[in-house]
Structures are given as structure tokens and as C-alpha cells.
């Protein structure tokens, strides 16, 4: 029972990720000119309720979808250049699951569960942003000209801008959403 339940639960999380990546409004909050993703929250929830390995799997699937979409249906002009590198598109997403899972394991027995869940949300979301932009910097530093026709020196400020707008706001969303969603789900799954 336990094994089959986990197998189907994993599959359903993959289904949720599939829906969130394709239906606008469920995976992305369009706010002004920005499009903020809440998919890291799903990955973090998977890590918390199913376990670290499963969180990594769900994150990896999200990365794979991004990777495949970069070839067939790119979501932004930049995606078709950077996400075709799996180290940019897949690896950071796997690590969201790992980081969130490990932090949850350390802190699940402590008293201030809600606060810790917020911190896990922030850490998980920031893992994604920092690693993704870091990878873009490492791999495309010399190629910035081809990327956005901006010169090499401009890539770092550009990435920092993305970080301070998208990255910090996404982390903020994760801080708010993670405890509010995780607490009832933890109660539900531990029944």
C-alpha cells in the first residue's frame, strides 16, 4: 500500500507540475511586467510531504519540462538560449528539492514549525534563482553578445536585476505560501 501510494502521489505531483507549467495563472503569477513562478513551492511541498528524494524527482521533472520546452515551445526569448543547457534548466530545480528536504529534516522536530517552513520556502526558492542565474553567468559570460546583444560586462548587472526583481519576489511568495500550504498537508498526510 505504502509503495503504491507513493508511486501514485509522485505521479500526481508530476501532473500538477505539468498543469502549472502549461496553464497560465496556476504556475505563474503575472504581476506587472514580471511573471513570478510559484512552481518552486510545489517542489518544496513535495519534498516536505513525500521526502527529499521525491522532491528532487519532482524538481527534476520540472527542469526536464523546461529543458524540452526550450527546444519546442520556448517561453521567453532568453529560454531558447540558456535552458537548452541542462545544467541551467534541470540541476537548480533538482537542488530545490534537496535543499528543502534536508532543511525540513533538520527542523521538523523543532517548535517553531511555521517559521521554519517559511525559511524553507525562502531557501528553496532562492536555491533555484541563485543557482540558475549563477549557471547562466558561468556558462554564458563569454557569450553575452549572442544572448541579448548586450556586452559581456552588462551580463552581471542584468542577472542581478533579474535576481532582485524576480528572485526576491519569488522568494517572498514562497515565504508566504509554503507554511500556509504545508501545515494542513502535513496534518493530512500524517493521518
Amino acid at each position, binding site marked *: 500500500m505504502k509503495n503504491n501510494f507513493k508511486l501514485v502521489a509522485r505521479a*500526481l505531483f508530476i501532473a500538477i507540475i*505539468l*498543469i502549472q507549467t502549461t496553464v497560465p495563472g496556476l504556475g505563474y*503569477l503575472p504581476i506587472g511586467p514580471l511573471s513570478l513562478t510559484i512552481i518552486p513551492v510545489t517542489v518544496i511541498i513535495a519534498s516536505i510531504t513525500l521526502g527529499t528524494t521525491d522532491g528532487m524527482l519532482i524538481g527534476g521533472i520540472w527542469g526536464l519540462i523546461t529543458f524540452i520546452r526550450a527546444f519546442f*515551445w520556448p517561453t521567453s526569448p532568453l529560454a531558447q538560449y540558456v535552458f537548452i543547457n541542462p545544467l541551467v534548466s534541470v540541476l537548480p530545480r533538482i537542488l530545490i528539492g534537496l535543499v528543502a528536504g534536508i532543511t525540513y529534516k533538520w527542523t521538523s522536530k523543532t517548535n517553531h514549525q511555521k517559521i521554519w517552513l517559511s525559511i524553507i520556502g525562502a531557501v528553496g526558492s532562492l536555491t533555484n534563482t541563485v543557482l540558475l542565474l549563477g549557471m547562466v553567468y558561468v556558462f554564458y559570460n563569454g557569450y553575452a553578445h549572442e544572448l541579448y546583444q548586450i556586452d559581456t560586462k552588462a551580463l552581471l548587472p542584468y542577472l542581478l536585476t533579474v535576481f532582485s526583481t524576480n528572485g526576491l519576489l519569488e522568494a*517572498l511568495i514562497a515565504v508566504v*505560501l509554503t507554511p500556509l500550504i504545508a501545515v494542513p498537508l502535513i496534518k493530512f498526510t500524517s493521518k
Partner: protein
Amino acid sequence: MNKLLLGRYIPGNSIVHRMDPASKILLSIFFVFIIFFANNLVTYGLMTLLALVSVVASRTSLRFFIRGIRPLLWVIIFTVIIQILFDNTGHQLFKFYFLTVTDNGLKTAGFIFIRFLLIIFFSTVLTLTTDPLAIASGIEKLLMPLKKIKFPVYTMSLMISISLRFVPTLMDETETIIKAQSSRGVKFKEGNILARSKKMIPILIPLFISSFKHAEGLGRAMEARGYKDGDNRSQYHVYKASKIDFCTWAVFIISGILIFVLRG
């Protein structure tokens, strides 16, 4: 809910419908691979011909292909405009302050535009003619070599099938939740970032809870029918590569070689 790319399968009995899903997936990858090597009129013409023949052979209405382009329209336009404005090689056509448009820039932009269209058309042929479950079985077939390194191919493919099966169910449920919340007066498109992210909570919690309930039910049902993880599973539909697959592959490989010969 036909906005989803995966759910757009249209049943039929064309040549493309009858092909092995695994070989269709591989062909799409191969198509995307060779189109990046095309770089002049002749090679792009050849790729266009390949894509159009595939579209015609799939015997589906062109309407669906046009519809497939729509969500990507602004990405395509943006990419093309960037290319036109910032590719400053070749002959200068006109200059407007710091913006220069050159003939090379226009040419590359045109090619990028065609490449976008062709890739979308070709991948749409795949999703229109292949049932999501057939895609899952195709993925299983392609992952088979990984079995040698103890990768759980069968479990993975079962998981993909289950998730594809539940995508429409979960979407229907989400739609019901959204409608229920809107009828209570929740306005999803208003408010600042915090207010809007908080509005996601009454959608996401029921979605997760219902997923866990589905998992419980289906897990129990699988248990009752004696499903054991990791055993060799048989399938209801068995897809085999036929003459059509071999002929199509022959055409595509010859085209691939021609692309390398004819590219400038």
C-alpha cells in the same frame, strides 16, 4: 480545457497516426537537431517541405497548427525584432538613431521566424496524432537502454502514464475550485503581490489534498489487483515499428545528409 498542449490528441487513422510513438518522438528530436544546421534558402526550403509533408500526412486541419502558434506569438515576434535590430553585419539598409537594420539581420530574422514555425508545426504533428498514453509508452521504449544501469524504466513509465491520465482530471477540479472561489467573490486578478499570492492558497490546498486522495484510492486499487512495483509489465497496446516508420526515417536521414551537403 483544450488549452493544454498535451491534451490535444485528435484520433484518426492517417499514416502518421499509425506510426510507432517512440519513432515519432525520435523523429521530432531529429527534426529539431537538423533544422539548427539549415542556414540558407535551399536548406530551409527542404525543411519546410519536410514539415509540410508531415502536416499533410497527418490529415489534420490546419486550424490546429495555427492555434498552436498563438501562445508563442510574442516570443517569436520579440526574438525576430531583437535579431533585426541588433544583428549589424552585412549591408546597412537604414539607420534610425542607434538602431541599424541590415540585410543580413533581416535574412537571419526571417530564417529564425521560419525555424520557429516549422518546429511548432512539427511538434504539433506529434501531439495531434499521438495519444498521451502512447507518448508515455514511446518514452518507455526510448528509456529501455537505461535498464542496463538499473534505472527503473517500468516504474518511471507507469508514473508518466498516471500523471498524464490525471492531468485532465486535476484541471477539471482546479477549474471547479476557481469557479467556486470566484462565485464567492474572490477576484484573482486584483491586489498586490502578497494579496494575489495568498489567493492561490484556496486553489492549491484543495488541489494537493485531492491529489493525495486520488493517490490513496488508486494506490489501494493497485494493491487490490496485485500490482507489484518493478515487475515486468505488459501493455494493452503494443506499438511496433512498421514499414511506414522505416520509410519515414529513410526520408529524414537523407534530408539530414542533404542539409549538411547543401548548407552554406
